[in-house]
C-alpha cells in the first residue's frame, strides 16, 4: 500500500466555509422562488436547486472531487438506478386514464 494513495490531499477551511455560504444562499433562493407562482415549473425549480446543493455537498463536503475516479462512477451507477426506476414508474402512472 502506498502512502500517497490512501492519504489524499485535503481541503482547507476556506473552501468549506465558501460552500456553506453558497448552500445557505441557495436555501434562501429556493424559499423565495417558492413564494412566486411559477406554475408547472415550480417543482422543477425546487428540485434543480436541491440538486445543485447536493452536488456541492457531494463534491466538497464528501470529498468526491479529490476521491478516486471509481467513487464517482459508483455514484453515477447508483443515481442511474434511482432515476431510471422513477422514469419507468412514471411510464406506467403518467399514462393511467382514471386519475
Amino acid at each position: 500500500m502506498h502512502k500517497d494513495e490512501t492519504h489524499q490531499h485535503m481541503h482547507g477551511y476556506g473552501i468549506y466555509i465558501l460552500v456553506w455560504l453558497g448552500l445557505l444562499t441557495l436555501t434562501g433562493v429556493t424559499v423565495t422562488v417558492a413564494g412566486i407562482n411559477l406554475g408547472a415549473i415550480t417543482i422543477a425549480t425546487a428540485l434543480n436547486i436541491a440538486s445543485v446543493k447536493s452536488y456541492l455537498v457531494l463534491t466538497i463536503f464528501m470529498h468526491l472531487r479529490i476521491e478516486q475516479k471509481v467513487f464517482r462512477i459508483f455514484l453515477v451507477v447508483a443515481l442511474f438506478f434511482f432515476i431510471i426506476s422513477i422514469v419507468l414508474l412514471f411510464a406506467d402512472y403518467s399514462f393511467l386514464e382514471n386519475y
Partner: protein
Amino acid sequence: MASDAIAVNGNEKEPSYLEYTGKGRGLKSWITSTDHKRIGILYLCSLLLFFAVGVVFGFLMRLELIAPGRTIMDPQTYNQIFTLHGVIMIFLFVIPGIPAVFGNFFLPILIGAKDVAFPRINLLSWYLFVSGGLLAILSITLPGGSADTGWTFYVPYSVRSGTNVTYTLFAAFMLGFSSILTGLNFVTTVHRMRAPGMSWFKMPLSIWSLYATAWVQVLATPIIGITLLLVAVERWFGVGLFDPALGGDPVLYQHLFWIYSHPAVYIMILPAMGVVSEIIPVFARRTIFGYKFIAFSSIGIALFGSLVWAHHMFTAGMSDTGQFVFSILTFLVAIPSAIKVFNWTATLYKGSIELGPPLYYALGFIFLFSIGGLTGLFQGTLAVDIQVHDTSFVVAHFHYVMFGGTGFGIFAAMHYWFPKMFARMYNQKAAKVAFWFLFVGFNTLYFPMFIMGWLGMPRRYYDYLPEFHIYHFISTIGSWILITGLIIMFTNLIRSLRKGKILTEQNIWGGETLEWRVPTPPPHENFEHIPTITEGPYEYKQNEEPQLEEVK
C-alpha cells in the same frame, strides 16, 4: 493460471481452516470466526437446515393437493404453509444460497486474497441471517400464527390479516440487510483485493457474476426493506400509505415490491450461472467459449433485470403504455441469458468431456433453466399473460428457474467444491443416482403444473375442480421422487464428511482457477504468498492430466 509464488507446502504445513481455531474451541471457534471460509460453512449449515424446513412445507402442500377437498389440513393452515414455504425458500435458501455459502468461501480464494474486505461485517451478516430465519419460522408458534399472505405480502390484505405478518415482515427486513452486507463486502473485495496481475478480464467468470449480483443486492434490496417497513408501520399506527381505505394505492405497493423482487430473481440466478461457467470448462477440458460475452452478459442481466419488474403486474391495472414498455424490456433481458446458454454449449462442443457429478448437475441446470427461461417469455407477452397470470403455469415457470436453475446450481457447486472444502470425496456413483432421482422427480412434479396452469388452474388454491385431479396427482408423486433424490444426495454428502476417502490432492478435477492451486483443505490464510497472475482463468494445457482417476 501459472504462478511462481504458490509453492506446495513443505514440512511446516500451515494449519487448514478446519484446524485453525483462533480464540475459542468447538462451536465457539466457529460462531466467532471472521474467516470467510468458516463463515461460508456456517451459512451452509444454517441454510441447509432452513432448506429442510422449506422442503417439508412444500411436501405437505403437495400432499394436501393430491386429491380435491380437504386431505390433511384446513385452508388457513394451507395458506400459512405456502407463505412460509415461499418466504423460507426465497429469502433463506435461494437468495443467499450461492453468494453467502460458496461466494464467501471461494470469492477471496478465486481472486487471490486472504479474506473479504470486511470480515467482521461478514460475520454480522450471518447473525442477521440466522436471526431473521428463526424469527420467520418461530412466528408459527406465536398466538395468531404465521403470516398467511403469500411471500409477496400484497396490501391491503397484509395490512388487515390477523396473523403475525409483522414478524415475517421484520424477518424479511433483517434477511435483506444480511444480503446487503454480503453484497457490499463483495463489491469492495473485488475492487480492492485482487491479486497482482489479476485484471478484470483475468477474473474467473463466477467472480463476474457475483460482482454483478452484489451490485443488485446493494441497490435493490433497500427498496423492499423500506416497503416492508412501511407495511409494518401501516399495520401498527394506521398511517395511510398503501391501504385504499386511506387513499393509498395497492398497485404502487406492487411496484415497490417488485422493484426489488424482480432483480432478486437475478440475485438468485446469476451466481448459479457463474458456477456453471466454472464447471463446464473444467469438465470439458476446454477454455470457455466467449469469455467476454459471458462476463458482460452478467452485467447485462443485472442491468436489464433491474428494469423489468412490472411484468409481474400486467393484469393489476397498469396503463397500456406501462405494459408495453415493460413487456419490451422483458424480452430484452432474455438476450444476455441466451448468450450464456449458447456459450456453455459451444464450450462443450468438441471438448473432451469427463462426465463427473458436478457436470451432471450443471447440465441439469442448463436444461431446466432453458425451459424456465423460455416459458418466462410466454408470460412477458401481454396477450398470453392474461391467460396464464396467477395460474400454476407461473408456479411451474419460477420453480423451473429457481429450483431447476438456482437449486441445481447450488447442488452443482456442492459437488464441485465439496472435496476442496472438506478434503473428503463423496461417492460419485451415489451422486449420479441422486441426480437422476432429482431430475425425474423435478420434471414429474413441475411439468404437470404447466399443463394445468394453461388449462386454468389458479395458483395458491386450496381446492380444485375434478378435471385437474390427474395433474395434481402426478405432481404429488413427483414430489416424492424429488424428495427421495434429496435424501440420497444429502445422505451421500453428509456420510462422506466422516467416511469419505481422505483427499490430499490440490486439484482433483483438473481445474485451472486459483482454488485448485491451494492445499486441500485451504489453509487459514489461503495463500502463503499472494500469487501473481499472468494468464486467464481457463487456459488449459494439453499435457496436463487431471488427477480424477486416482480418486475413484
